[in-house]
């Protein structure tokens, strides 16, 4: 009887985890094989776009990547590693299993954020590839930009990119999602083509519009929805809240990420905010209870700032005492009478980990 009771609830439980498939798909990101090569990107920080004969194609979700690659005996003698969405000054180090460093040829990519590398296999079969920019551990201050909710305004996004490119202090763009309007493969394809003019990489989580055409398309293009990386001593945690909730499996990972980030500056970004600063609107989590529980966890984890999208305006507020920014200024249908149109937010982090935000109006 008890089993039957639980079975009934398990049936409904599928309705209670609309992002469950995406959490599972996240775990598949960062793996690829073919043509005698098997690639694993640590922590899924890059989507393995293709494993071709003699070439690996990746889309980076973070500035620093570590990849483990095994080549079968029949694999090509030399391999190209083509990394899209990379910091333009990132370099690849290739080491064998025994720690021997292999010489790597670097050549310019087709656009600023594409990096191309080539290395020979020699007698070795197992390699550790490390992609790092020269300032990966630099403790000095730096700036990144927050840009979200481009959606149907993809035709007009180039002038936002031009403004970002005009600020050389911006190291990368962080996005809280809604890159596309309907989430189709064609839109994702178009989005990545438009990104080619941007001089810095674009690290993103996904929004509710990005999943409108079904789960899996976003991950195939741009990698995990929930992940974390560390750059210059600052932890960036991106969470998939595209279904107005966070999956239990992601909460399990978040516990570890919060522990890691407790003693460093910690930036948390997600698309749908746990709480809407305008409560009656509830462009927020479906459950106020889950929102409270998440914010208490972030506060206990000493998170320094939370960044959100979804609401097509700009708000500075506080949630559980953590400074919060909503910025949905990528061009999607704007909130009227909000006094702001297209915009992006700059976030400066100094050497002590203190954060300061600013708004750059594009319209």
């Amino acid at each position, binding site marked *: 009887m008890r089993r039957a009771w639980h079975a009934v609830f398990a049936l409904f439980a599928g*309705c*209670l985890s609309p992002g469950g498939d995406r959490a599972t798909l996240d775990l598949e990101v960062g793996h690829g094989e073919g043509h005698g090569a098997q690639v694993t990107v640590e922590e899924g920080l890059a989507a393995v776009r293709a494993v071709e004969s003699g070439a690996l194609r990746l889309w980076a979700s973070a500035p620093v990547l570590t990849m483990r690659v095994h080549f079968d005996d029949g694999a090509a003698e030399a391999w190209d590693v083509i990394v899209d969405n990379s910091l333009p000054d990132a370099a690849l180090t290739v080491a064998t299993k025994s720690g021997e460093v292999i010489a790597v040829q670097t050549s310019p990519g087709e656009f600023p954020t594409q990096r191309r590398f080539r290395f020979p296999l020699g007698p070795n079969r197992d390699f550790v590839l490390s992609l790092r920019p020269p300032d990966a551990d630099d403790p000095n201050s730096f700036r990144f930009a927050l840009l979200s909710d481009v959606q149907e305004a993809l035709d007009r996004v180039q002038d936002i990119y031009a403004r970002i490119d005009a600020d050389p202090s911006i190291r990368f763009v962080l996005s809280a999602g809604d890159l596309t309007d309907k989430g189709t493969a064609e839109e994702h394809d178009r989005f990545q083509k438009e990104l080619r003019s941007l001089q810095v990489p674009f690290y993103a989580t996904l929004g509710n*519009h990005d999943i409108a055409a079904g789960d899996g398309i976003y991950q195939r293009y741009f990698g995990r929805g929930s992940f974390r990386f560390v750059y210059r001593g600052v932890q960036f945690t991106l969470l998939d809240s595209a279904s*107005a909730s966070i999956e239990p499996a992601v909460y399990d990972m978040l516990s570890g990420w919060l522990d890691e980030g407790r003693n460093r500056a910690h930036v948390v970004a997600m698309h749908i905010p746990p709480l809407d600063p305008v409560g*009656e609107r*509830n462009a927020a989590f479906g459950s106020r*209870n889950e929102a409270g529980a998440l914010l208490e966890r972030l506060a206990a984890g000493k998170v320094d700032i939370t960044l959100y999208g979804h609401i097509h305006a700009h708000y500075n507020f506080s949630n559980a*005492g953590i400074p919060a920014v909503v910025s949905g200024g990528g061009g999607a249908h704007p909130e009227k009478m*909000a006094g702001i149109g297209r915009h992006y937010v700059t976030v400066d982090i100094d050497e002590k980990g203190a954060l300061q935000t600013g708004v750059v109006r594009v319209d």
Partner: protein
Amino acid sequence: MRYPTAFLVLATALGCGLLAAPAHADEPAASISEKPPPPPPSPARRALATGAAIVPGLVLHGAGHAALGKWQIAWPILGVEMLGLGLGAAGAFTFWYSGAARDLVGPATALTLVGGGLLGFSWLADVYGVLAPPGGTGAPDRILPHVEVALGYRYVHDPRFSYRNLAGAALDLRLRPVRLSASAWGALDAGNQRLRASVAYRFLGPQPFKDKTAPAEDGSFVEVSLGVTHHAYQNEGFGLTLAEGFAFGRLDLARLGPTLEGSFAEMGLGWALGGYDYAHAPGEAASLLLMRAAIGIYLGSPGDPHGEVSLFYDHRHDDYAAGLMMPGIVSGVLGHFGLGGTFYMTERLGFGLEAQIGSAVVAGFSLRYRGGMR
């Protein structure tokens, strides 16, 4: 009040219904004695009407009654649909055009929800009217008890929280038009309690028995309430406290026509303001739009075992069921749906059943006692 437009609409909709006398009362007694009631529709015609209530009734509400030849009921049902469509469209357009602007989003959401509620009412009323037996499925209590007590159990499946089994109690004390209510629910397997107290004033509708006062005409009522809810999540280290004002009403649909006897519709709007308290952070303000719409039927009649059951939408995002999880672009906005009812086997003893789906699935059972019916 932040939503004067929506309250005006709600008040108008309820007022129009309440001002209409019950349908059985507007027929002169003489005409009843002179004209025998029309024979009930044949099974074939009822089947045709049931089909018509679905196609094209899903689009043209009232089609079922039209197929029965009950145009005097079909037209009001269609009118409610049109009103719902109009309000819903006005709200949705405002919502969309303004980009959910902070100063308009409350009224726009309220209008959309009221419109959606009316749309649900009109369709389900049409279906009920063609399916219900003559005289309806039951009748309401026209005199309410002074005291009503419930002891209950709820099973809650929320994959994001550890609690599953809750026990609770609720108490209603009625003194003429005033109702004092309190309820407490606590998890048996986690640190979680939800406490609530409210006071309501009933402007019209059934009340406890009072000398020299006739019972209410039917189950329709209008009341306003003020309440406070505190929900403590000890395991998770936070709590949410909200004070709220809520205007709520019920309309017995028999007032629209005799085929709808035994059914009712409810709607309410309100606003809650309060705040979170956190174990590791300072507290912060929170606000919430409240809206509830329900359509239901009476089961049995007072004097016999009887009760009522209703299908409802509740816009609350802060209770155990919270907001509905929906994949895609609308996730987070909607509240939860549910089915609930009470049934009294004797004048004093009964039970309640409930099921809700939102961010969590909730199923509950309660034993009920009431006293002071005379």
